[in-house]
């Protein structure tokens, strides 16, 4: 058996004139956990629905566990465990009753079915709720039932559409841990908005934007290729350091000139100028070693009174924004009240 579990070739889906997915091609190997990232309506769910044979693509084809979704859709479906978005379950059924039914639908019977149901209940930590009615469960437990139904037939491939959405941080952490454990022997595709989750869970990220795949790499590689580290320097406005003592000075020192000439600096831009302090961000070109000593040296030579110097490493959040909006991350995002004017360049 080949190691390639999913092969998508030029998948596309249009609804009338709306293009939900365009020419998506990718391969997924055994044991990989792939994160599908993208804004709402980007085509993540469409991709998953095509692979699970819920909808047919308008163009292209895919092979799931060696089964073509057109020619052997039953075979493809048998190889997949699928948890759709928002975990649709038969609310009126008991947990055990529901899982028994899924086992039967997945072709398990008798002792084997009974054993698998109990195994999967244990695997996802549903033991205390096995006799409960599904509608009475918390969101976290419902999510476990959803995962259990996807796992019951021991599928080599798991497709999970936003498995962590709507969960509180504790529940999300538990589900994430569960997925990571499950992903050890399986191929997993999961979609999410939460970039933190992707960085923690996935070995590979596919970023989809407006129906197109705009990035396909490991989270680390995506971060590395999308620009080097950034430094934020804060210094006093209208004061200069001369001959070892502070003097009043008129106007701000020209940080752009001072830092712009340093080797390895890509861009310098002002972030804020308030309360007598100026903050600039220096973007280094990728793959340069720590620039902090050079920055400090240049500041001293220019007579700038530095009161803060911090390093900001690029994260997936930034990569995602860059790729899906074409705009840089808004500054001071965590303190919206003091939000600086829109940055003019990047």
């Amino acid at each position, binding site marked *: 058996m080949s190691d390639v579990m999913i092969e998508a070739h030029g998948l596309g889906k249009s*609804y009338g004139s709306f293009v939900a997915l365009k020419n998506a091609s990718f391969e997924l190997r055994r044991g990989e956990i792939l994160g599908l990232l993208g804004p709402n309506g980007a085509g993540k769910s469409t991709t998953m*629905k095509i692979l*699970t*044979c*819920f*909808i*047919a693509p308008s163009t292209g084809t895919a092979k799931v566990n060696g089964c073509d979704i057109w020619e052997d859709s*039953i*075979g493809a*479906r*048998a190889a*997949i465990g*699928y948890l*759709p*978005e*928002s975990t*649709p*379950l*038969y*609310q*009126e*059924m008991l947990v055990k009753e529901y899982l028994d*039914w*899924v086992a*039967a*639908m*997945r*072709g398990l019977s008798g002792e084997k079915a009974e054993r698998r149901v109990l195994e999967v209940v244990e695997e996802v930590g549903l033991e205390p709720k096995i006799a409960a009615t599904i509608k009475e469960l918390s969101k976290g437990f419902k999510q476990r039932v959803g995962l259990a*139904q996807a796992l019951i037939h021991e599928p080599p491939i798991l497709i999970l559409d936003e498995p962590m959405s709507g969960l509180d941080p504790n529940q999300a952490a538990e589900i994430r841990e569960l997925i990571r454990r499950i992903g050890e022997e399986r191929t997993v595709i999961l979609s999410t908005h939460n970039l933190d989750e992707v960085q923690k869970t996935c070995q590979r990220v596919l970023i989809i934007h407006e129906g197109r795949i705009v990035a396909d790499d490991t989270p680390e590689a995506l971060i590395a290729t999308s620009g080097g580290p950034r430094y934020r320097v804060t210094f006093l406005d209208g004061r200069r350091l001369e001959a070892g003592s502070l003097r009043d000075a008129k106007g701000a020192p020209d940080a752009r000139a001072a830092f712009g000439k340093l080797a390895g600096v890509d861009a310098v831009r002002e972030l804020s100028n308030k309360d007598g302090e100026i903050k600039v961000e220096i973007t280094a070109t990728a793959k340069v070693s720590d620039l902090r000593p050079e920055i400090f040296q240049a500041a001293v030579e220019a007579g700038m009174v530095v009161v803060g110097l911090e390093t900001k490493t690029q994260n997936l959040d930034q990569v995602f924004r860059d790729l899906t909006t074409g705009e840089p991350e808004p500054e001071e995002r965590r303190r919206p009240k003091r939000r600086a004017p829109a940055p003019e360049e990047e």
Partner: protein
Amino acid sequence: MQNVFNIAWRQFRSYFNGPVAYIVAIIMLGVVGFMFWTFFFLQGRATVHEMFNWMGYVMVIAAPAITMGLIAEEKASGTIEILLTMPVKESEVILGKFFGAFGLYLVIVLLTFVNPLAVSQFGQLDWGPVMTGYLGLVLEGSAMIAIGLVASSTQSNQLVAFFISLFLLAFVGWLVPAAARFLATGWLASALETISFTHHLESMARGVIDTRDVLFFVSLTIAGLVLSFQAVESRRWS
């Protein structure tokens, strides 16, 4: 086949978790029982002929109630996504849904058997027409459920599905029979009779098994199943 059974069994059992099955059973047994016995004592003859007609009339409301949720509810809640991504064929899903609803109908029909049993205590009941009448009832019910299933397959709102099938069934089960009876004779009356559910049921309730009556209900059932299948299948391409 196993898949059809699993889907049907789950559907059948799910009826008893909600109010629909109980409401339908109470209406069918209560209304039919009341109307039948009222007329029975007025007539003073040992026959259950009238019961079959009442059953047909009540099914015009009961069949939409039984079938409205079959597919529409799965679409609304999203569970259809899990169901149709299991290794089952769309045709198996449709058949399973049909038999789930049909099973509930059969249980209710079986319960009405207390009526002829009671009648047989009052006088000499001719069991022949009773049996053919029940056959007619089973066939008519399957056609009505298949029509309701089409409505449910094309909708994602149960209530809309209910009214679509109620409208269709009221036409062939209430309006057309009433018009045919009003006109009594003439080509229009006989044309209306060919599509009247009551007319086809009535001859069976009299003890006559006419292949035309059987074919009428069977072909409607098959047509309903095929249309439902197409509605569910077309979702993949939309």
